[in-house]
């Protein structure tokens, strides 16, 4: 048995922590949290949240070897294992909105069982089988009659402000959460937002008035105004936040990549051939998890995935990711996780010691990576050498399905014509491409797409 590895992100809460042992994730509940945990389980709250799919389920472990060397451990839980941890700055609008609504439903249910959600951080939600679920078992404490909701500001900064910015300013504002992993500052949000939002009563209270009071409320004044709040008042606060979140919307409009599949250069024959070959290659490497880079609206997770393998569909255009997410919800496609991301600027390690939020690369390697219609973008737009592309792919995937696009391809020529270049950076021949990738990979299979000059390779990383 390997030594336990404490998850670096799990250090703030004295009630417990998360650790890994032999590749399995566990949660330790400390003695200090024993009474709250007992109330969570015995009151019926856990059962209700689990039944409604709002919170991740767990099993209590009786294996005492897990407790060895853990002072103050009360219980060890084995939660449902999440195949891929994603972060709020990688979510599209719909994902952040669903995560916000789940958090509020959990907070409301907790009050019904005389508990309170004390931690409303967006990172406490993950997408499990296509659904947003609260994952932090330690986020609850017994409700104390008369007290306000202490996670109120946190909810506004983690959910309401970024959602309102994405809805009213630009959907790309979500990436700002990378700069503010502990929540988007209320005053900054209020400055950026247009004044017309004041006429939405919920936003005016929870963002504008809230921001104003943050900067103008001395502690003494709070003490003099302190009073007991009824449970109904706390419930109404949460309900008003639900109204505010529900009123934020994002209408899908055309973006750079949103109509790619209807405007690309593939014939119908080529499209079908490509889907068949990719599907065959995916099946050959029998992956548990596939990362589809530059996934657009996630089409290949549907058309080239005969075994419904779990796909993380990563795309830089948040409009395409939104389309993908809505389609997943509509069709009940629980095996697809759409995410906003760009492999040329992958999510970095963030937070304390740069390890609280894992970088995209450190969340790999995936069993299989799809790089379809991608390398010419990396070489021409990002000035990467093919050797660098090969090296990056080796880091992130055990197998890689890569599409070689010849130099005279219409898309390559279109990209080159829009740039001033002394030399063509994408002047690789098929032979050069194969030689470069064979330094780090073994070619398991290769097939030319029908009615096209493009060629697909199934590569396996060399040990």
């Amino acid at each position, binding site marked *: 048995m390997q030594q336990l590895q404490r998850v670096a992100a799990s250090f703030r809460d004295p009630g417990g922590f998360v650790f890994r042992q032999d590749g399995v994730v566990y949660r330790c509940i400390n003695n200090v949290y024993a009474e709250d945990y007992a109330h969570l389980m015995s009151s019926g709250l856990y059962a209700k949240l689990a039944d409604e799919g709002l919170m991740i389920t767990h099993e209590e472990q009786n294996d005492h070897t897990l407790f060895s060397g853990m002072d103050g451990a009360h219980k060890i839980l084995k939660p449902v294992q999440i195949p891929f941890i994603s972060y709020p700055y990688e979510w599209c609008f719909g994902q952040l909105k669903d995560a916000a609504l789940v958090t509020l439903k959990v907070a409301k249910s907790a009050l019904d069982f005389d508990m309170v959600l004390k931690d409303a951080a967006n990172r406490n939600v993950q997408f499990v089988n296509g659904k947003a679920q609260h994952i932090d078992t330690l986020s609850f404490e017994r409700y104390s009659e008369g007290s*306000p*909701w*202490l996670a*109120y*500001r946190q909810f*506004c900064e983690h959910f309401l402000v970024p959602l309102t910015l994405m809805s009213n300013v630009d959907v790309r504002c979500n990436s700002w959460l990378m700069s503010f992993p502990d929540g988007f500052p209320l005053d900054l949000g209020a400055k950026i937002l247009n004044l017309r939002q*004041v*006429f939405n*009563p919920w936003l*005016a*209270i929870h963002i504008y*008035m*809230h*921001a*104003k*009071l*943050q*900067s*103008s*409320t*001395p*502690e*003494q*004044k*709070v003490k003099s*105004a*302190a*009073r007991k*709040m009824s449970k*109904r*008042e*706390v419930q*109404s*606060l949460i*309900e*008003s936040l639900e*109204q505010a979140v529900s009123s934020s919307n994002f209408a899908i409009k055309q973006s750079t990549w949103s109509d790619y599949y209807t405007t690309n250069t593939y014939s119908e024959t080529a499209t079908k051939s490509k889907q068949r070959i990719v599907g065959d290659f995916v099946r050959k490497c029998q992956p548990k998890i596939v990362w589809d880079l530059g996934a657009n609206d996630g089409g290949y997770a549907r058309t080239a995935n005969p075994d419904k393998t779990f796909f993380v569909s990563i795309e830089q255009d948040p409009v395409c990711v939104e389309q993908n997410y809505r389609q997943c919800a509509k069709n009940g496609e629980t095996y697809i996780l759409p995410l906003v991301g760009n492999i040329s600027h992958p999510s970095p390690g963030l937070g304390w010691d740069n390890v609280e939020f894992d970088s995209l690369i450190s969340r790999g390697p995936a069993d299989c990576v799809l790089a379809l219609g991608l390398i010419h973008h990396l070489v021409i737009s990002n000035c990467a050498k093919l050797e660098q592309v090969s090296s990056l792919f080796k880091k992130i995937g055990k197998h890689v399905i890569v599409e070689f696009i010849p130099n005279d391809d219409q898309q390559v020529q279109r990209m080159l014509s829009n740039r001033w270049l002394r030399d063509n950076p994408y002047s690789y021949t098929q032979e050069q491409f194969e030689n470069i990738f064979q330094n780090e990979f073994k070619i398991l299979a290769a097939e030319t797409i029908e009615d096209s000059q493009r060629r697909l390779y199934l590569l396996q990383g060399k040990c």
Partner: protein
Amino acid sequence: MNTISINVAFIVAFLTVLSIFPCDAKAYIDPGTGSLMLQYVSSGILLGLLSLKATVSHIRRVFQSSNFRIG
């Protein structure tokens, strides 16, 4: 009707609360104090707004029900 009545009620409450807190306070600021204060002063307003909204919706539903349709 629903939205207008809520907005009017809200604007009155909003201006009242803003007038209580001057902009030039320079005291030490605890990041959580504003949130606590807002809950103390606005939770009653929020409860009122939600009740008003529910009442208006109820009245609207009653008048839209078949019993009140003319002809």
